[in-house]
């Protein structure tokens, strides 16, 4: 089968390690460029909101980090499920590599949300359905990390983490639809797939640029982390030792 790339070969940590290393600088560079563009549009092109004044500019970080916190959870659970089903080594490592970044975005979603809530709602926190389900997401990430840290055998830690991650997926649609199912304080979606965005085009552009920047950042930082995890777990393997001898 000449000329056909064997994609399954990349699922081995040994072949993925150098490939991931080559990809990191590209994703990091694109993330930096998109962030610069997004911040420029967000602060210098997008107009002042006639209702919220300048406080609305928190949207350029709040919405993208919130999207990422949910998206990374789904990707993490996907890798975890794949590892559970196919028993591939790399899948569990990918899930473990995504969890800390996802937890960080969930924290940032709550943090920026609190700082936006104070001037607009008069409170940093309220037990609203959207806020509460996002807090549950943060705890799911922390639970996943704690569970994996508590189990010494990495393969068993992967399996236990995968079950937790897959059960927790049910929370994602709850977060997404919470603003429709329970009409509480948090506003509904300003952007949806089925209708055009209910905001100025420049505001929308800034938000999308920032979301893409965080996406590329997540890929870069997760690739660096998965490389570290690969070496930590396979340090006794022949290929890893050959790598060390080649570098020395």
């Amino acid at each position, binding site marked *: 089968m000449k000329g056909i790339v064997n994609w399954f070969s990349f699922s081995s940590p040994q072949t993925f390690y150098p490939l991931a290393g080559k990809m990191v600088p590209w994703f990091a560079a694109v993330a930096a460029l998109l962030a610069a563009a997004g911040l420029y549009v967000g602060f210098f092109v997008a107009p002042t909101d006639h209702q919220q004044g300048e406080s609305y500019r928190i949207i350029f970080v709040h919405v993208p980090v919130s999207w990422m916190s949910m998206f990374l959870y789904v990707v993490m659970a996907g890798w975890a499920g794949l590892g559970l089903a196919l028993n591939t080594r790399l899948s569990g490592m990918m899930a473990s590599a995504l969890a800390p970044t996802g937890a960080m975005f969930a924290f940032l979603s709550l943090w920026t949300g609190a700082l936006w809530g104070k001037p607009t709602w008069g409170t940093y926190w309220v037990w609203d359905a959207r806020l509460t389900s996002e807090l549950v997401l943060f705890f799911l990430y922390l639970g996943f990390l704690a569970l994996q840290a508590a189990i010494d055998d990495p393969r068993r830690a992967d399996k236990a983490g995968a079950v937790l991650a897959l059960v927790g997926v049910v929370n994602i649609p709850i977060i997404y639809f919470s603003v429709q199912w329970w009409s509480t304080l948090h506003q509904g979606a300003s952007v949806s797939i089925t209708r055009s965005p209910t905001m100025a085009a420049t505001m929308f552009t800034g938000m999308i640029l920032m979301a893409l920047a965080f996406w590329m950042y997540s890929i870069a930082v997760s690739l660096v982390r998965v490389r*570290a995890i690969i070496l930590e777990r396979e340090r006794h393997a022949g290929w890893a030792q050959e790598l060390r001898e080649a570098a020395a």
Partner: protein
Amino acid sequence: MSWSSAAEFFAMGGYAPYVWGSFAVTALCVIVESLVVRARGRNAVRGLGQAARGAR
């Protein structure tokens, strides 16, 4: 452009603590995570040497 001076930009229409508090903490998290993950990578490479010495 909504700003006529740098001071006006940093004041964010009176919402400076909220706006800059959001962006600064996000930037801090991203920078710290990048540094932590790079350190973990370097430690993992050092761990290879320890694994080799331990095996002998």
